[in-house]
C-alpha cells in the first residue's frame, strides 16, 4: 500500500517535472511545476518531514507560484507564451542533461545509504530547537536577507527610479 | 501618530454603531407583504377607488357607440357594433382590448356615455378594474376578447341576416328609399 502511494506520487512528480521541461506554453510549464512542487511535499511526508512539507506548500504554492503566475500574466498577457530557445537548441541541452544525470546516478551508486524503515516522527519542536540553537547564525542571516530583499524589491519597482528609455523601435514601445 | 490612532478608533466605533443599527433591524418586523397568498385581505380591496387596473367592458351595458374606440389614442380597442334582432339599437359583434398596448390614460372612460350604479358602485360601460394580474404565458394572452370568438361569429351572422332582411324590407316598401345607416364598419 505504502509503496503504491509512493509510486503514484513519484509518477506525479516526474510528470510535473517533465511538463515543466518540455511544454511549449509557459503557463503549462508553470502548472507542471506546481504539480511537481505539491508532489514533492508528498514525498517529504514519506520521509517523515511534515513541517518541511507544509512549509513547502505554504511558501511555494502560496508564495512563489502565485508570484510566478503573476509575472506570467503581467508580462505575456496570454499571448507570446510559446518560448523555446532556438539558439541553445535541444541537442546540446540534452547532452548536458545526460551528463548531469549520469553523474547523479554515479553519486547514488556510491552514496552508501541503506534501506531503512523509519517510523513517522513529529519534527516541529526539534526543527525549532535546531533553528534557534545550532543554526541561529544562518537563521538571523536569512532574516537580514529577507529585510534587504523586501526593501530592494520595493525600491526597484518605484516609479521614479525606473529609467524610462526609448524601446528599440517597436510598435508597442510607447512607455 | 494621533491621526493613525484616531483612524483606528473611528473605524472600530463606526463599525460598532453600524452593527448596532443593523441588529436593531433584526429585531423589527419585516414590512414586506407576502403576495399573493399570505395577505390579510386581497390587494384589490386595499386599492383606492380611482385605481386604474386592467380595462374592463360591461358587454350588457355597452351600446356599441364606438366613442371609446375613437377616443383611444393608440388603438387599444377593437370593436364593432351592428344591428341585430337581439335588442333595440346596436349590438356588439366583438370587443377586443389589447392590454399590452394600453397606457391607462382614462380617455375611453371619459368618452363613454353609458353609466350605471349609484354613488358607491358607479361605473361606465368601459371602466378600469382594480385588477392588475394580467400576465400570461403568450403574447396573445394580452388580447382580451370580451365576446368569445364563437359568439362573435354567431352575432356576425345574425347581423348579416338582419341587414339582408332590412334591405329586402326597404326594397319592398319603396324602391328609392333612403339608405339605412348601418353599424360602424
Amino acid at each position, binding site marked *: 500500500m505504502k509503496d503504491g502511494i509512493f509510486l503514484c506520487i513519484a509518477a506525479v512528480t516526474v510528470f510535473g517535472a517533465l511538463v515543466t521541461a518540455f511544454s511549449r506554453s509557459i503557463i503549462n510549464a508553470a502548472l507542471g511545476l506546481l504539480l511537481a512542487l505539491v508532489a514533492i511535499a508528498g514525498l517529504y511526508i514519506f520521509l517523515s518531514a*511534515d*513541517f518541511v512539507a507544509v512549509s513547502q506548500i505554504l511558501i511555494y504554492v502560496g508564495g512563489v507560484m502565485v508570484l510566478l503566475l*503573476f509575472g506570467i*500574466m503581467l508580462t505575456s498577457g496570454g499571448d507570446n507564451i510559446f518560448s523555446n530557445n532556438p539558439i541553445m537548441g535541444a541537442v546540446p541541452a540534452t547532452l548536458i542533461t545526460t551528463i548531469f544525470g549520469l553523474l547523479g546516478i554515479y553519486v547514488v551508486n556510491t552514496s552508501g545509504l541503506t534501506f531503512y524503515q523509519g517510523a513517522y516522527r513529529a519534527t516541529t519542536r526539534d526543527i525549532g530547537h535546531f533553528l534557534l540553537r545550532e543554526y541561529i547564525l544562518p537563521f538571523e542571516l536569512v532574516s537580514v536577507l529577507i529585510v534587504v530583499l523586501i526593501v530592494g524589491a520595493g525600491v526597484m519597482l518605484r516609479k521614479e527610479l525606473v529609467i524610462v528609455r526609448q524601446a528599440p523601435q517597436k510598435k508597442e514601445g510607447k512607455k | 501618530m494621533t491621526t493613525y490612532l484616531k483612524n483606528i478608533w473611528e473605524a472600530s466605533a463606526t463599525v460598532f454603531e453600524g452593527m448596532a443599527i*443593523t*441588529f436593531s433591524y433584526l429585531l423589527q418586523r419585516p414590512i414586506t407583504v407576502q403576495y399573493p397568498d399570505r395577505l390579510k385581505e386581497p390587494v384589490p380591496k386595499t386599492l383606492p377607488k380611482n385605481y386604474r387596473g386592467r380595462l374592463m367592458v360591461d358587454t350588457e351595458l355597452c351600446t356599441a357607440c364606438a366613442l371609446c374606440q375613437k377616443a383611444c389614442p393608440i388603438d387599444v380597442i377593437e370593436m364593432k357594433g351592428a344591428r341585430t334582432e337581439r335588442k333595440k339599437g346596436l349590438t356588439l359583434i366583438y370587443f377586443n382590448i389589447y392590454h399590452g398596448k394600453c397606457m391607462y390614460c382614462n380617455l375611453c372612460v371619459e368618452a363613454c356615455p353609458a353609466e350605471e350604479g349609484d354613488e358607491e358602485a358607479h361605473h361606465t360601460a368601459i371602466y378600469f378594474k382594480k385588477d392588475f394580474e394580467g400576465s400570461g404565458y403568450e403574447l396573445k394572452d394580452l388580447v382580451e376578447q370580451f365576446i368569445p370568438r364563437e359568439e362573435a361569429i354567431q352575432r356576425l351572422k345574425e347581423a348579416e341576416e338582419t341587414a339582408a332582411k332590412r334591405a329586402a324590407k326597404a326594397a319592398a316598401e319603396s324602391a328609392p328609399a333612403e339608405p339605412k345607416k348601418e353599424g360602424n364598419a
Partner: protein
Amino acid sequence: MTQFIYMFIFAVIYLLSIAVAAGFLTVVERRIAGRMQSRIGPNRVGPQGIVQWIADAVKALQKEDIIPTDAHSFLFKIAPYLVFMGVFLTLVPIPFGAYTLMENLDTGIFYVLAMASFVVIGVMMGGWASNNKWSLLGGMRSAAQMISYEVPAALAVFVVVVMAGTLNFQKIVFSQGASPVDWYVFRNPFAFIAFNIFFIAALAEGNRVPFDIPEAESELVSGYNTEYSGMRFLFFFLAEWGNLVVIGALVSTLFFGGWNFWFEYTLEFSVPGRYPIRFEVLGFLWFLFKVSIFVFIIIWIRWTLPRLRIDQLMDICWKYMVPIGLFASIGILLWMYFVPEKSLADTIMRYSMTSFGGLTILYFFYRVFQNLRVTKAKIYANPFV
C-alpha cells in the same frame, strides 16, 4: 488497507457535511439578510425555506456547463475544484471534539495556513483561464489580496502559537480552559488585538464583504467566476460558504477555547476511553454554537458595511494590520517573559479583560435598544415570519 478505507469513509462524511453546511448557510444568510433589510427572504421551499438550497442546487445542476471560446479549457475546468479543495483541506486538523477530528496533525495551524494557498491558485487560474478581462482582473485582485492578508493572519496566529507553545490544535484547546477567563482572547491585550487582526484577515482571505473586491458585482460583474455556470459555479459557492465554517471554527478554536465544555477538563482525559462520551457530545454542540455565532457575525458584517476600494484595502493591510500585528507579536513575547502564568498581574488582567468584553457586549445591546427606541419600532424577535 482497512485504515485507508476508514480514512476514505471519514473524508466522504466530512465532504458531505461541509457541503450540507455550506448549502444550509446560504439559506441562513439570505434569511438574515432579509431581516436586516426589513424583508423576509426565501421561505417557500420547505418549512421556512429550509431546503431552498436543494432547489438552488438542482436548478444549477440542470444548467448547461458553458466553457467560453478561447478559454484554456483544462484550467477552466479544474479551477473550481482547486478552490474547493483548498477550503476542504483546511478542515482536516480542526477539532470538533476530543475525538471528532480527522487527523491530529502536529503542524496544525501551519497546515491550515498552507492549504489556504490552494484557494489563491485556484482563483487565479479560474480568472486567467476564463479569457475575460473582468475575470482576469478579479483573479489578480484576489491573489494580491489573499497573499497580502496572509501576513497579518500569520502574525496573529503567531501570537496564539507563542502563548500555547505548540502548533497542534488539540494542544491549543487543552491549554485554554472552558471558562471565558481562560480563553486566549481575554488573556491579555495583545491576544485581543491578535484576535481582531485574525478575524479581519480571515474575512479578507475568504473574500467576504467588506473585502469582496475580487467579486465586486457592481464593478467586475462578479469577478473571477463571471464565466462559470452550473455545477462549477456551485463549487465556488460551496467553497465560499464552507470557508465561513472554517473561519468560525478557526477563530473559536484559537481564541475562544474550542470545544472545551467541561469545566474540570484536564489532559488526562485525552487518553482514549477516559473521556466520557456525553462530554464529547456536549463539547461538539458547544463548539458548533461558537462557530455559528461567528458565522452569524460574519454574515452580519456583510450586511452592515459597504465594500472597500482596492487602495483602501491595501492600506488597511499594509499600513494598519501588519504594523499592529508586529506590535502585538512583539508585545506578547514581552508579556510572556515578564508576566508568568497564574501570577497576580496575569489573573487581574484576565478578569479585567473578560469583564471588559462583557461590558462591551452589554453596551452594544444598550445601543441596539436605543436605536429601536429612536425609530419607535416594536420589538418582534420571532425569527420566523
